[in-house]
């Protein structure tokens, strides 16, 4: 029962840090001015064009595809696998389970393999390609280790050493409903405890690490800005300019 209490506390804490930390960074990014228009051109000239560009970046990793096919294959495989695995895990947090979560179960199970293959490929590049080895810090290896271990421990529970997922689900529904009086016990299965512990650790380091690329990509001015900085015919009013609040203070010498 002590174990259940520790894990319940761990997940409450990790959740608060994850949501609070990432929320803080998102607010910080949103409130930091972008004083000059710096889209990497050729860039869309309309808002909807920018949404499409960003969509292709986030879903297909378009720029990475142009850069390096190996990084793209492994990177995309890992992220696609992670996405489908996360979607599959929704079944442990919802009652009744949503229809589309049921639908993807058979594929979701194999998402773990895509994840692991992707991670191993990326890791191999870090070790084998001298340029990538040069830029790698110890934390980059640890991050790969953590993600791979989460993937492997999860896959083992799905395919080799099943855990009592009914009890796991009862535990999470319990902590999600704040049912402190009737907390459902977490199975004392070592693989499960390891898996959950590492997931909580990942949630904890997310807001303090390079994993911030996830919200960051949406705030990248070179990708999310509309290419319309010039005074085009018919757009001469002051409101067509892009002046940051701090830059307005510099404008005391303006004549006409």
């Amino acid at each position, binding site marked *: 029962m002590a174990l259940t209490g520790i894990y319940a506390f761990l997940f409450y804490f990790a959740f608060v840090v994850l949501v609070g930390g990432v929320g803080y*960074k998102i607010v*910080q*990014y949103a409130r*930091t*001015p*972008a*004083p*000059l*228009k*710096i889209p*990497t*051109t*050729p*860039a*869309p*000239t309309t808002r909807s064009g920018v949404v499409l560009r960003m969509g292709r*970046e986030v879903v297909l*990793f378009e*720029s*990475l595809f*142009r*850069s390096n096919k190996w*990084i793209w294959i492994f*990177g995309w495989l890992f992220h696609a696998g992670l996405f489908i695995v996360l979607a599959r895990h929704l079944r442990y947090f919802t009652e009744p389970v949503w229809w589309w979560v049921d639908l993807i179960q058979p594929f979701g199970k194999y998402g773990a393999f895509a994840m692991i293959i992707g991670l191993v490929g990326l890791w191999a*590049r870090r070790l084998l390609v*001298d*340029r*990538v080895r040069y*830029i*790698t*810090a*110890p*934390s*980059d290896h640890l991050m790969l280790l953590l993600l791979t271990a989460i993937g492997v421990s999860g896959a083992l529970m799905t395919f080799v050493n099943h855990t009592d997922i009914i009890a796991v689900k009862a535990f999470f529904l319990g902590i999600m409903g704040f049912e402190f009086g009737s907390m459902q016990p977490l199975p004392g299965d070592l693989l499960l405890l390891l898996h959950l512990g590492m997931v909580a650790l990942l949630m904890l*380091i997310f807001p*303090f*690490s*390079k994993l911030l*690329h996830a919200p*960051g*990509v949406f*705030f*990248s*001015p*070179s*990708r999310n800005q509309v*290419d319309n*900085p*010039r005074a*085009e*015919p*018919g757009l001469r*009013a*002051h409101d*067509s*300019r*892009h002046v*940051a609040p701090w*830059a307005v203070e*510099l404008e005391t010498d303006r004549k006409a």
Partner: protein
Amino acid sequence: MADFETPELDDIPTIPTVKPGTMEHSAPYVAKPVIQAPLGFPGELVDDWETVAVAKLGELSNKYRALRVYLDSCVKCGACTDKCHYYLGTSDPKNMPVARQDLLRKVYRRYYTLAGKWFPKLVGATDMTKEVLDDWYSYYHQCSQCRRCSVFCPYGIDTAEISMAAREIMDAVGKGQKYCNEIIGKVFKIGNNLGLPEPALRDTLEDLEEEVEEECGVPVKFPLDVKGADVLLVTPSADFFAEPHIDGLIGYGKVFHQAGISWTVSSHASEAANFGMFIGSYENMRRVSMRIREAALDLGVKRIVFGECGHAWRVAYSFLNTLAGPFDFLDPNYPVPQHICEVTHDLIQKGVLKFDKSQNDHMVLTYHDSCNVARASRMGSKPGGQFTIPREILKAVCNNYVDMAQDSIHDATYCCGGGGGLLTDDLMELRVRGAKPRMEAVKQVVDAHGVTNMAAICAICKSQFTKVFPYYGYGMDMIVSLHQLVSNAIIMDGAQDGAGDAQETAEDAPQNA
């Protein structure tokens, strides 16, 4: 200055293995106090500069979203590692975009992130030290801010933004770069990068009028400070005297003359380039830009047109309305500003300009997309106009045109190697090595298609190639201005021989053709 070897060109471009420290010795001359003062920077390293630098980094990351997001978001995936022309030409790993960014990022991490404060070794964070500052000074002056890395980064991380921030921090602690800061000072004092005062500028333009009339028999004017002209032409001051830049200026003059557009140059704003951008200083960039606004108001013009210059066109297209707008006193039928290529292209579309393409038959041409035109600006109304418009002009004025390899043109173009405030003799080794990827692409079309000349629309590209082509065994006059080709082929009303300016082209025929 140390001797260096010109790199061997590879037939198939290859990615070099990392050789740490090969370019550590490369750094530009440091600005003296007298150069720093007019820009509002301390003259020498200030007391407690480490604290000042760290505070400035914090201030900048609060002012520039790009900087903050780019410092946080890099995952070290390696996609950019083989994309920088300086890395490809030098093998120095600190010239890989991610490693160049990390020089700043490791200090940001140390002072502005929990991970860096608690576990510096783990995440690669370091204190602000003299060693770090020296690395910044060397390697942030080995970035031409060409943005090729930002095209290939999955998050669009732009090393130019990081370089600009690093240079601004260095200026703030008193370690400025002589070349850039001296030039900005000249613009504030005299009006252009070369320090050409009004009388010298007037003489130059008058001589040019005589020369052009002698050559083609048409009284093409090169007016200075003419009130009430329709167009204010703002062009890099190199166009007033350097080769081949001046041939481009003659081309602009002929286009305006033939189209009957009245125009003028301003002695107050006789410079298109804005070196304020190279040093990342919004305030200095704004002060330079304001001179153009002042000139336009004083002269009462209706339009502002920029000549051939890459970083200048970035500041003009992307920043001018922000820095010096609104331009509601100009003719609302034209965008502000316009590029000279847009003007010429429009006139070709309308049938106002006619060409005798055979005047350029002694050349087989290719086109070098200048980095900041390609990746930081636009022409016309559609995305990618900066690629199509210059090429359409080229195809209208010459018969022999080939493009270089796809992975070296358009938005994948390689920088000439001299942009971003590096066009100075103290960085010659870097400039020659950085030109290697472009030279390999040129060599391919020279060998396969007999290309004799490369056209460009940037003053820095033209100056840089004039200098570095000979290192690779090509003639310095292999680089030509796009409007020089327009000038060769344009059919002028009332011209002596009625077929353009055959005399001029005969004289201009490149020796290596």
